[in-house]
């Protein structure tokens, strides 16, 4: 095989693994949109907030320590102990569920029957609030996140491809783990929605709010459930991206990568989020590989949106989205 083909293959494989990372973020959007028709602008910030909380628990940081010190002249910073990753993850899940409960009580409950744009605006406010809350609770400094997921070049992939092609491919081990975690997550979500009472209720609400209400399904419970699941998905995305770049406030910008994924895959489809992520990942890496010598690099950001734009022209509902039928 020629070098160009090998390099392109390597770029494509990397695109697949990166695409899964994009999908992890997009999944949270899909879950909430599917169940409540809300485009959750705060999904990226939820990933940041979850990652900040996880690191805070892991390192035994005192929440609001800066505030406490400023008001009371104290000098508290941490509890003096660290927490195992699995325990910190469980506690963070509890926090995300509590957050979902509060969002439902304080925001969504008061906006029932409002236009989708009002709910969307509410999530913009929520994003700003959560970003500020995360800052006050855990501080703005960059934090290292280590939950034991290995990182670095996969020696196995390197050796295998070297034996096959005489050139060792580079794949980040973290991305391979992301692949596995995404598979488990999607399987879990499918099992939950197909085989549990709450999952079926969630699907019923997603299909028809009024009909679901008429058979006694609590819309408020479903919203809490949906936002809790989206919070857990945000935690998973926060762990993967936070392990890659550290936990810092730009982590919330990963949401920008999810938008073209959603346009491609459709806002209401979980498989769509996965396939959309893969398409964006592979597409941007191959485009950059082939076009970089011609138009220069740094094409990844705009290529994803350009591809999404093309899809919007021909298939506005995305690959797996529900066709919008307007009756007049």
């Amino acid at each position, binding site marked *: 095989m020629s070098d160009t083909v090998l390099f392109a293959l390597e770029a494509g494989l990397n695109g697949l693994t990166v695409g899964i990372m994009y999908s992890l973020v997009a999944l949270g959007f899909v879950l909430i949109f599917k169940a409540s028709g809300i485009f959750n602008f705060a999904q990226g910030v939820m990933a940041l907030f979850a990652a900040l909380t996880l690191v805070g628990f892991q390192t035994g940081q005192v929440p609001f320590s800066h505030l406490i*010190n400023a008001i009371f002249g104290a000098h508290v910073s941490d509890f003096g102990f660290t927490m195992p990753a699995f325990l910190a993850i469980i506690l963070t899940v509890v926090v995300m569920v509590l957050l979902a409960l509060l969002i439902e009580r304080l925001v969504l409950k008061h906006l029932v029957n409002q236009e989708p744009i009002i709910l969307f605006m509410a999530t913009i406010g929520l994003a700003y609030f959560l970003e500020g809350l995360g800052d006050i609770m855990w501080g703005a400094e960059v934090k*290292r996140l280590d939950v034991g997921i290995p990182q670095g070049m996969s020696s196995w992939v390197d050796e295998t491809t070297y034996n096959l092609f005489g050139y060792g491919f580079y794949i980040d081990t973290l991305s391979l783990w992301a692949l596995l975690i995404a598979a488990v997550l999607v399987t879990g979500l499918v099992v939950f929605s197909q085989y549990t009472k709450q999952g079926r209720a969630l699907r019923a609400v997603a299909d028809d709010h009024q009909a679901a209400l008429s058979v006694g399904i609590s819309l408020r419970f479903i919203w809490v459930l949906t936002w809790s699941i989206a919070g857990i998905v945000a935690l998973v995305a926060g762990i993967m991206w936070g392990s890659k770049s550290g936990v810092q406030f730009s982590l919330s910008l990963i949401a920008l990568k999810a938008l073209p994924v959603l346009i491609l895959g459709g806002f209401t489809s979980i498989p769509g989020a996965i396939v959309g992520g893969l398409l964006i990942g592979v597409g941007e890496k191959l485009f950059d590989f082939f076009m*970089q010598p011609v138009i220069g690099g740094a094409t990844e950001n705009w290529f994803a949106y350009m591809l999404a734009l093309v899809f919007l022209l021909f298939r506005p509902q995305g690959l797996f989205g529900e066709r919008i039928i307007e009756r007049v």
Partner: protein
Amino acid sequence: MKMMKIAALLAASAVAAPVAAQDLHFPMLNYRTGPYAPGGIPFADGYQDYLTLINERDGGIGGLPIRTTECETAYNTERGVECYESVRGDNPLVIQPLSTGITYQLIPRVTADGIPLHTMGYGRTSAMEGETFPWVFNYPANYWDGASVAINHLLAQNDGSLDGKKIVLVYHNSAYGREPIRTLEILSERLGFEFLPIAVDHPGQEQGSQWLQIRRERPDYVLMWGWGVMNAVAIQEAANIRFPMDHFIGIWWSGSENDVLPVGAGADGYTALTFHGVGTDYPVYSDIQEYVVGRGLAAGAGDQIGSAVYSRGLYAAMLAVEAARTAQELAGHAQITPAEMRAGMEALSISEERLTELGLPGFSAPFDVSCQNHGGSGAAMLQQWDADTQSWSLISDWIEADRELIGELAAEDASVFAQENNITPGCL
């Protein structure tokens, strides 16, 4: 009745309006929020703490207290300009915008308003040409100096020849990141090394393509002009592809604890340029502990003291204070105006003796500012990260930039600016 009381109070306050208090106003255009806050916070804390130290220990400058006002830019150009507009009528002695984007917007404004602008280690490089940019100062070093220093360091590492070597520049795809490209292109032609610039779009959270390309290209060295999350991700990716960290050199804005701590052990040996000392092993830090921290006056959370960017903020404040002192001496009075501050900045002299007096021996390369040269010495050192001790250490002496080349490039760029803006270069 209530309205009458309010009116009476307002009238009384207007009559009793005090004469403007005698102080020296140093506005701070900071960014403590947003994606770049981890870099903005330590700088702001260092700047504020040094000014607090001068007030607490020395009673201000020339007997006048320093007054600071803080305006949040969030590293956003529009908000930065708004901040400038909010302070420009309040006798600001010097504006430090902490952003190349804001700097470019403010250059024509400060020139029209007669307010000095100091862009330390960032901003428009050709502003070192003082005759074209009389109100703008970028001492002690600029981006082109940084590129030249990095190459001079590599020359020293390779027995004076880079012929046949391949050097990659990974840069933030912005005005800031593109600054060193021209200098490096010229140096590559002169010195015979292959130069390959690779752009990373904001914010730089995903750099897979760039590092795959670097892995394919197998460069001898990688230079980085990054900021924010881009730095940590680049260092992580370099560690992932097993690129030797001591062959990876960042500009000073890619050399903070925030850039290496998230990478953990993988960042061990990473190097970056710096135009000031690192760590807290300077007498001034004892004073900061005694007069600032000890009195509960530390800026922010007080947890940034001694970090790389905190030191830079402290250095910027020290240079501002020294310029104000010089201005007071030149003017013959303590209450100086922005124009007098500008004269002080242009007459600034930082000697080793003065640095020692200030409790910062060896912290900066000595330099003199003049009407022609607003750019300082251009010298920088190399710092290296030790992941075990989680600290930077200096691994080189001061390395000079090729000021002949930088001067030529700056003069060329300044000349174009002067023509475009109908400026007749000269000293004020």
